């Protein structure tokens, strides 16, 4: 045999092996968690009622099919994890009246549109997209498929069959800020920010306002990592804040790396989006969590009742049980705990308003006059730091 022919043949064979290897990894993933990259449109279907092994379900009481698109893996322990917990709660709440499924790690790009269309073609009548970046692809899909209802988290564009929902995460930030203000010894707090958008800037400000409500001397340092989830970078950013003198940290990113870094250094931090107390029991002071279940149950009820309406915006907070503070550490003094509980009760019945003047920006200019309460439009456009936060909002100075 000509050695060269053999070599060529071997190359082809090896290429096939490599292709198989690569193919295998996808195959394994589809059967377990479903990646958007895989071409098969199968998603993990979770039905509480035992589904018949074969044959279509009787049409008489066909359950409502609901699909979720997640930006991260369900195991991120933060943002997507909270959404998936709510999906499970939703499934439990309605039992066999609904069937929910999800696709995780759907990129915030054109590929998302294909995923939404896949979901619709599988008979899902209600589709939730759980990140800001799905706005345009979802809007496009919604225009083409008027029979399917779309729910988009944290966006601002709507359609007759698409509406948005969000959580007032800044209420949780304010409450953990109160604890941070009481626990710091250096009067310096640190925040690891993801992307400088109004939501995150609002959280940094609210965290600082909360801290200042118990300790007026508070300064907050901010480090941006420009990503939602990148654990090594989040950890490095946390380390930089600790090096700079901050001794209580908060993060508006999606993993528990900041909390772990604080734990390693013997400092304090919080859980965000989900309860993270187990990741670093000694460093964890409290977790500001989002509970998406009340909204998901409400939206599904609308569908079942036939009262679902598009072109609407919902922004739920403590009042609707969408935001909460949990697992407050024993290290937090009782009087601070009581103050946090009082704020929570005030947010619940509407007697307490976080964004109420006088509030001053960190350039010294008054942004909210004494006695004035910010409306949702004001809150949605926050592009400045309040007094006490160091530095400037990236890109914010141009406005």
């Amino acid at each position, binding site marked *: 045999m000509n050695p060269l022919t053999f070599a060529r043949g071997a190359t082809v064979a090896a290429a096939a092996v490599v292709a198989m290897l*690569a193919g295998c990894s*996808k195959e394994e993933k589809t059967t377990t968690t479903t990646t958007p990259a895989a071409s098969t449109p199968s998603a993990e279907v979770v039905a509480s009622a035992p589904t018949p092994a074969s044959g279509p379900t009787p049409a008489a009481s066909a359950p409502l099919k609901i699909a979720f698109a997640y930006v991260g*893996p369900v195991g991120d322990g933060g943002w997507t994890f909270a959404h998936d917990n709510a999906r499970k709660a939703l499934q439990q709440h309605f039992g066999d009246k609904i069937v929910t499924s999800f696709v995780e*790690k759907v990129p915030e790009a054109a590929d998302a549109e294909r995923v939404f269309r896949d979901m619709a073609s599988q008979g899902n009548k209600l589709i939730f997209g759980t990140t800001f970046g799905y706005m345009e692809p979802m809007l496009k899909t919604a225009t083409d498929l008027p029979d399917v209802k779309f729910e988009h988290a944290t966006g601002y564009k709507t359609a007759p069959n698409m509406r948005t929902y969000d959580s007032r995460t800044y209420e949780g930030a304010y409450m953990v800020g109160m604890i941070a203000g009481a626990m710091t010894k250096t009067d310096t707090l640190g925040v690891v920010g993801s992307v400088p958008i109004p939501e995150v800037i609002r959280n940094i400000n609210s965290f600082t306002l909360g801290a200042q409500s118990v300790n007026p001397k508070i300064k907050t*340092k901010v480090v941006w990592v420009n990503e939602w989830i990148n654990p090594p970078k989040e950890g490095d950013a946390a380390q*930089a804040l600790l090096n*700079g003198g901050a001794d209580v940290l908060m993060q508006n990113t999606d993993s528990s790396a900041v909390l772990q870094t604080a734990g390693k250094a013997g400092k304090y931090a919080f859980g965000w989006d989900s309860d993270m107390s187990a990741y670093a029991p000694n460093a964890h002071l409290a977790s500001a969590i989002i509970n998406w279940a009340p909204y998901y149950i409400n939206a599904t009820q609308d569908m079942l009742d036939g009262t679902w309406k598009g072109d609407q915006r919902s922004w739920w907070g403590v009042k609707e049980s969408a935001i909460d503070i949990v697992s407050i550490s024993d290290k937090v003094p009782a009087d601070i705990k009581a103050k946090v509980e009082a704020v929570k009760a005030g947010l619940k019945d509407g007697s307490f308003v976080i964004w109420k003047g006088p509030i001053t920006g960190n350039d010294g200019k008054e942004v909210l006059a004494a006695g004035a309460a910010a409306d949702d439009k004001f809150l949605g456009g926050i592009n400045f730091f309040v007094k006490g936060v160091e530095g400037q909002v*990236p890109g914010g100075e141009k406005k």
Partner: protein
Amino acid sequence: MDQFALLVAATLNSGTVLAFAALGLLINERAGIVNLGAEGMMLVAAVAGFATAFHTGNDWLAFGAGAVAGAVLAAAFGFLVIWLNTNQYATGLALSLFGAGFSAFVGIRYTQEKLGEQHNFAIPGLADLPFVGPALFRQHPMVYLAIALTLAIAWFLYRARAGLVLRAVGESPESAHALGYPVRRIRLAAVVVGGALCGVAGAYISVVSTHLWVEGMTAGKGWIALALTTFATWRPARVLLGAYLFGGVTMLQLQLQGEGVQISSQFLTMLPYLATVLVLVLISRNAAFIRVNMPASIGKPFFPG
């Protein structure tokens, strides 16, 4: 001054991951093999290391598991490119994609798990010295091991006979073959050692740096390590320098942000890449020097006659 000491400490810690991975890749490339699968090997090693640390509670076993995971993947890669002569670049990319998917699949079970509290390291006596103590002597042992490894590899490549043979294989496999050296086996050994070192780097990320497993957590460090070997013109000391430079500028830009310096964070995020490339290009701008150091047969298949 204290802040500066902490910055030095964070730099050493941050650069160690890159140093291990880039030194591993340097050994590969000195033997003439480019393994673009670094990122994939690191991810699989990260999950292997995390799982081992989780089940046994022993960080050293975790590094061992990471090394083994990296070595096994590298061996598979080596078999494909050395014996079956598949294209090194395509096969490396496939390995990278495979590693990302496979680690995510295996890691599902570990995404919510936690490791025990981490202990701090300190060299008795030296750690309490002012400035140099906190800057240099309170590091994880792997940080010192990376420095020792750099010296060992430099000695091996330029002072040991086996290192000379390895370089000969990378320069001219035909000549080495004619002299009777088992070119393929030597290349495989280099690839396996390189994979093991990438594996150690991966395990360091999940077990020491972050203490958790998250899908895709190496976040491009494998690719940076690959670039680093080239920019450092395949010299071990420069690889280490580049790794610390990258780690240092990364930490510096985060610290500057924390101090409220008025530079856009997007620009600062770009700095580590810019600074590392700039410095390494400057110190290696001599074309003849690059030619001398670049393994002549890099990326090329070898067919024994």
